[in-house]
């Protein structure tokens, strides 16, 4: 009889797995726990038509954002979305598309179906189980009743279209100003050296020096610049599990917040940041400004 129960249980588990409502990879990005890829993409009649714009199903912001800018003492900068289709690499698309929802204008057509309580929750494995706000910028732009998306918990709420309290997005990651092996040394901080070719940016160090790896994705331009965008740190397709390649070997690691690198322990959290900020890492042996 026990065997029968085991078999029955197995059948139910298989059935349940096949029709599970929750998508473990997409997490809250599987809006309504049903839209799947349609949460953001549409196979027909996309809002943004053409190669490189990801068959985007959503409206994108057109207003100018104030960004954090470059460096600790640098002036703030601005981002005016001008999305370009075609073969020329468009780096800002990896920020602007995120702002389709994360600007606080998350549309009620999708929002109403997110959950009965009307909240987006993050059931990640690392204790982030509370309602997770997803908007950056000002709550003033939010629709009524959507205050839980006002801003990241506990952070400073800035004004409308103000991203200055958020991690730099749409800023250039230093590249080529000072060639010093695997490091690059601009005037304020030292960064890992990157190589940009044909619009693809990659770190010169492949993890052989910094064994956390460099899971962050930089977006290269045809002109040879490497940009940091939302999609640099975040992979919207994988909420809590990701692949990192260290010295040519792929490993599965736990993460949170759709981050591209391991992000679980305190060491991981530091390591993820240091995978860009070279001079903060214990591995750093370079010279130059720190």
């Amino acid at each position, binding site marked *: *009889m026990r*065997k*029968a129960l085991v*078999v*029955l249980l197995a*059948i139910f588990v*298989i059935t349940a*797995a*096949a*029709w*599970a*409502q*929750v*998508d*473990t*990879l*997409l997490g809250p990005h*599987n809006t*309504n*726990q*049903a*839209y*799947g*890829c*349609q949460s953001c993409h*549409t*196979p*027909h*009649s*996309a*809002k*943004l*038509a*053409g*190669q490189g714009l990801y*068959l985007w*199903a*959503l*409206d*994108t912001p057109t207003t100018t954002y104030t960004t954090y800018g470059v460096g600790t003492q640098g002036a703030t900068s601005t981002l005016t979305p001008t999305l370009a*289709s*075609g*073969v020329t690499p468009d780096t800002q698309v990896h920020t602007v598309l995120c702002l389709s929802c994360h600007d606080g204008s998350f*549309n009620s*057509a*999708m929002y109403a*179906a997110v959950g009965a309580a009307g909240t987006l929750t993050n059931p990640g494995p690392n204790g982030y189980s509370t309602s997770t706000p997803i908007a950056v910028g000002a709550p003033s732009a939010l629709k009524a009743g959507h205050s839980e998306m006002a801003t990241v918990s506990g952070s400073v709420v800035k004004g409308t279209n103000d991203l200055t309290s958020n991690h730099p997005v749409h800023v250039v990651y230093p590249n080529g100003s000072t060639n010093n092996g695997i490091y690059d040394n601009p005037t304020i901080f030292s960064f890992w050296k990157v190589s940009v070719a044909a619009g693809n940016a990659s770190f010169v160090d492949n993890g052989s020096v910094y064994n956390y790896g460099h899971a962050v994705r930089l977006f290269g331009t045809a002109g040879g610049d490497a940009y940091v965008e939302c999609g640099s740190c975040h992979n919207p*397709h*994988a909420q809590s*599990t*990701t*692949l990192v*390649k260290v010295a040519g070997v*792929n*490993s*599965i690691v736990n993460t949170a917040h759709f981050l591209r690198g391991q992000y679980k322990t305190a060491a991981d959290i530091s390591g993820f940041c240091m995978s860009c900020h070279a001079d903060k890492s214990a591995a750093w042996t370079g010279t130059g400004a720190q």
Partner: protein
Amino acid sequence: MKKASIIVLAILVMAIGAIAQVGAGPWNADGAVGHISHGCLLCHAPHSSGANTFTGYAAASIAATNPTWGSDWAGQVKPAKISGVFNNASTDNASIYLWGAAMTPQTYTTWEGTTISASGVTKANAVVHTLLCLSCHDNATGSHEMGSYAAPTSNMGFANPACADTNVALGLTGCNGEAIGNSTYNYNGGTPAWSNQASLQGSHPVHVAYTSGSYNWKLNADGTFVDNGVASGFTYGHPAKMWMEGGTAYVECTTCHDPHRETKTAFWNGTNYTVSAVANTVYYLRGPYTDPNMTVTSGGSANADFCRSCHYSKSLAYINAKGVAQ
């Protein structure tokens, strides 16, 4: 133990029974209304397809000439494109699936920026599996050729019941003909409109090559998927159908869509193809899918997995395989 066996057997029998309920046959057995307004004749001609045999027969005289067909067409506003069945000056589509409709005259720009047209294509060309669909879904002549038909239960613009009746044309406009990049969410309603723009740049890539391996699933030489869902753990399967030409696998309209089944999917059960009783779908898709807007209670990751059945790198199987192509 005997009891256990009986219980398990009973479950299996019930499961098989549930599947067998669709035994009426796959062709239109699911009550498809979008493609059967004239039965198979909507698209195929059993005789003289694409040839000139019926040249000279005006549409209005068909009923007198052939009462059976006339009855079949009675009460319908016959689409101009379908007149190609009877009065088709073109012969280039005669041997392609007995295609009864005139091929689209449009040259289309694809998502990748390349162009496709019906000029000179044969059934050996993968692109026919897109072009044939565009016989109707192009609206290139600018008239609402299919607008008089009964509203299909789904629409081409995705997930909006409000535009369910006439929205069968592809183009640069949104679900309801709205211009791209406007201020409303794509799933919202609007004034139904048609597109006659020769652009497929807003649609999922058609007539693009699917490269085997790396971030995609591996393909066999015949275009079938190497993965059977067992080793990879990707249990959804791979219902998409690649079209081969010159050793290259192409994604076309009918890679994702099976125009013969609107709400049921056919799958390989290990012995033969059968129509699933549980794996329902929408939009004539080849794999299980649920319209997330019409029915919010089911679907779940099955919807995402349909996409992942091609887009390997977005699947959990990819992570579990540490990025090694399967």
